[in-house]
């Protein structure tokens, strides 16, 4: 690990201001992703701003009938919250499908959204990677790409966003609430929060320099049958090859978001619109424009089959 200085944030506004004014500053929350990457010198912050003591660890009802989830709410606590279990079960399920009990006790809502890719070449500092070192090329294109993306990729990068939680947040139309270094607050729809790589794969979110996430807000519950199905190489403690978050409504409607397919949680209006026509139509709409490699072409079939399986479960 490279050396860094350490500071404990006093308030959200102070943290954001400090993050902008200190060169090479980064927030640290659970640390489960950032420290992992710092040990490998993939991340080399000069200054860490520890946000853990900020009062951003509450889950509160909103006036609109939804929930405001503090940036520091731990994944375990979010998954176990009674209101989340009852009204947003797909979110509980997605969280519980991720990582391990120990990691979920530490991982935070904001940190989970901002966790970085698990592309093997991003982790291998001896290989070119446009995301880790802009302009060096992409070793994955001609390398091992089995767990990489088939939707939303670019010629610069085909990495996926690995979060399970974010897929459910996308399905539920969450918004990400932030404060900027100058004190301005804003809410970013989750659809616009994660960026597609284009020719700047190193820029992964819509956050401006120093901008701090305060909370993630869920709109009022939509009812229906909630399902999160994660397909992976072993039954527990592994990232998704493909995951599907779905809510089925009694009128044969539904909405779908996908993990493991794209650089961001993947959701397509046309796929939601095809719900009444069944799994095949949803898969076709969701995967329209897919770009696969030899290694990851199987994800198309796997997505279609996963959809068929959850349709059968929901409509049984």
């Amino acid at each position, binding site marked *: *690990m490279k*050396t*860094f*200085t*350490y*500071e*404990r944030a006093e308030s959200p506004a102070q943290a954001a201001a400090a993050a902008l004014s200190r060169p090479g500053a980064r927030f*640290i929350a*659970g*640390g*489960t992703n950032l*420290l*992992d990457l710092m*040990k490998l010198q993939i991340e080399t912050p*000069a200054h*860490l701003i*520890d946000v*853990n003591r900020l009062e951003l660890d509450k889950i509160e009802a909103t006036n609109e009938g939804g929930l405001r989830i503090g940036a520091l709410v731990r994944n*375990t606590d979010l*998954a*176990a919250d009674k209101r989340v*279990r*009852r009204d947003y*079960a797909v979110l*509980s*399920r997605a969280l*519980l*499908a991720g*990582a*391990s*009990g*120990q*990691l979920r*006790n*530490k991982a935070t809502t904001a940190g989970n959204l901002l966790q970085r*890719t*698990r*592309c*093997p*070449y*991003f*982790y*291998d500092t001896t290989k070119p990677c446009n995301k880790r070192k802009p302009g060096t090329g992409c070793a994955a294109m001609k390398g*091992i790409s*089995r*767990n990489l993306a088939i939707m939303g990729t670019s010629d610069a990068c085909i990495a996926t966003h*690995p979060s399970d939680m974010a897929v459910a947040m996308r399905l539920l139309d969450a918004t990400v609430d932030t404060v900027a270094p100058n004190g301005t607050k804003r809410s970013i729809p989750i659809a616009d929060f994660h960026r597609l790589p284009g020719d700047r794969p190193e820029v992964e979110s819509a956050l401006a320099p120093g901008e701090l996430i305060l909370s993630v807000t869920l709109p009022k519950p939509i009812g229906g049958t909630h399902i999160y199905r994660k397909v992976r*190489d*072993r*039954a*527990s*403690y*592994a*990232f998704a090859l493909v995951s599907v978050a779905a809510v089925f409504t009694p009128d044969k409607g539904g909405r779908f978001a996908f993990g493991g397919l794209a650089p961001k949680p993947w959701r397509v209006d046309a796929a939601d619109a095809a719900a009444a026509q069944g799994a095949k139509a949803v898969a076709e709409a969701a995967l329209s424009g897919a770009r696969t490699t030899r290694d990851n072409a199987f994800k198309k079939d796997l997505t279609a089959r996963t959809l068929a399986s959850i349709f059968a479960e929901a409509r049984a």
Partner: protein
Amino acid sequence: MTVGNFGVVTRRTVLGASAAACATSAIPRAQAATPAKGDDAMVPVALRINGKDHHLTLDPRTTLLDTLREHLRLTGTKKGCDHGQCGACTVIVEGRRINSCLTLAVMHDGEEVTTIEGLGSPEKLHPMQKAFVVHDGYQCGYCTPGQICSAVAVLDEIEAGIPSHVTHDLNNVAFSDEEVRERMSGNICRCAAYSNIIAAIRDVAGEDKA
């Protein structure tokens, strides 16, 4: 070269082949204000470990795991992967199990830590430690401190009604072998003592009616 389950490329990853709540009274923290300019500023850190207060001055890079092992000689807690992938470093902080390798000691200033040494001693074993002995829940023993800390916390989590990936009804959490397997998946055992580990945990949970 193989690709590990978590994206890391190594010739053989750690995971390659297989797969008690503490008292809440916190000690006053050392005032870890912004250190003065300079790259290697040390930081004061106060920790209550197994009921005993420790006041340390650490490089901020020091993980909780290295603090325990290298600074306090509490070597019961093990380092397997150092990347959150194996669970050998599991300790209980403020009543919750975490991977001590993926957190900085300074982030826990003023907090309570329980390690395997704090759960019980050779003269007075914790029930979970005793059960691991009785059921042969280990072979080489390297993963065992982490397994035991995790197992103690798992029973608390089930008791507290925290659901898991295999909980059928999110609002009805109950002990089962399936639940224990899922909840213990963050603790890898290279010797594959898994079935005996489950037996030990089942025993402590009082579910071992056989």
